[in-house]
């Protein structure tokens, strides 16, 4: 509702968030992923402002803490930075993968797909295997970066 949005003094953000409540992905992560995606596709460039917390909340009816959490995550990743009193702005781009490298990766992937098909895996099976491996890859990479610092974050486990 417009009353809830701040008056548009000057340009708004180039992007607008959307939410897929049934995707199973946590809300804040969806926002992070959408910013990264926009960066990759060129909708966002360094210096652009990310949507104001108020506007996101008014449009999507989500908890403002969630938006703050997403923006903090982007800050941690070095992709955005907050300016007090002004908002959150894009700071860097995602490392672009060079075109030849992309072509090489694509070739490798097609080869893998051929092997999977030969082994008898159907399309859903391939997707499941890929998703599971991707998750394992993330978790192993995440636990390496987190190290031992995770202990004091959570309180109250009996």
């Amino acid at each position: 509702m417009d009353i809830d949005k701040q008056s548009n003094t000057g340009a708004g953000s180039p992007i607008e968030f959307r939410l897929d409540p049934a995707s199973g992905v946590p809300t804040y992560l969806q926002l992070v992923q959408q910013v990264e995606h926009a960066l990759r596709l060129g909708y966002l460039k360094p210096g652009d402002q990310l949507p104001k917390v108020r506007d996101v909340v008014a449009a999507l009816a989500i908890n403002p803490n969630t938006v703050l959490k997403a923006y903090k995550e982007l800050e941690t990743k070095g992709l955005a930075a907050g300016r007090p009193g002004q908002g959150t702005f894009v700071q860097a781009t995602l490392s672009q993968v060079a075109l030849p490298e992309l072509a090489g990766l694509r070739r490798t992937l097609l080869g893998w797909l051929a092997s999977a098909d030969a082994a008898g895996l159907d399309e859903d099976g391939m997707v499941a295997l890929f998703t599971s491996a991707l998750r394992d890859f993330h978790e192993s990479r995440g636990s390496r970066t987190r190290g031992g610092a995770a202990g004091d974050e959570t309180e109250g486990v009996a």
Partner: protein
Amino acid sequence: MSPNVVEASGLGKRYGSTWALRECTVAIPEGHVAALVGPNGAGKTTLLNIAAGLVAPSAGEVTVLGGRPAGSPAALDGIAFVAQDTPMYKNLSARDMLHLTRNLNRRFDQPYAEARLGELGIPLKRKAGKLSGGQQAQLALTLALARRPRLLVLDEPMAMLDPIARHDFMASVMTAMAADGVSVVLSSHVLAELERVADYLILMSRGCVQLAGEVDDLLAAHRMLTGPAAEADRYAGRLSVVHTSRGEAQAHLLIRASADDPVPPGWEAHTVGLEELALVYLREPAPAVLPGPARARGQNNQQTEVTK
């Protein structure tokens, strides 16, 4: 340390011979949206009524907004309450309701209220009784928000609303939170919608608090293990198992553990969603002896007075 918007210890409320609330201990930090979830008759409305100052407890203590007694003038000033079924004076127009609320409170943002009603398409001249259920709920919320409270307490606010109205309602509440730092405590028995909105969860069942804590912490502290049913009992003793569900070959164990805890070989670990977690706990017969209410860090007053 950030004060708690609602702090209850050993709270109990008896009506006649039934206890609507029993040994209820919670500490809801400010700046959150706290969702009070539970089946009908769990005591959610009673707890909210006590926090709003409408009902005096039979046992225990409760303070709001950082130590003020519930129902005191300071508490009433800072808390805006919207009861179930949003009671309205049917014969008063929306404009009259604004006038009324303005007179009865210290702060009232008349321009905001009028603009909001205009946006919602609620004519100021129309009598409150002639508005639809959804419009009445929106009017009640407008009156509450225009008071610029520190805490907004909503009792099943969206029962009467269609999906669009629900979305707009929540959008307004969340925006008030973003703009003014209002804390929100709301009750609901619709879990699915709360995932987007709640960052503090209180599960209640049969008058007791089953589980309370920040959503992120709660979800991080639980795992769902899937593995062979035959091995399920072997791990039951070693792991803190909250709930077991088993088929003939496969079993699921909901355990309390963090992501760093090792997964038994041959088992898969998944994170648990809010709805699944809540349902499991709500079905448990005994109040959970577990990540109890997350006290604001630094505070350690566990005064449980039980008066019979």
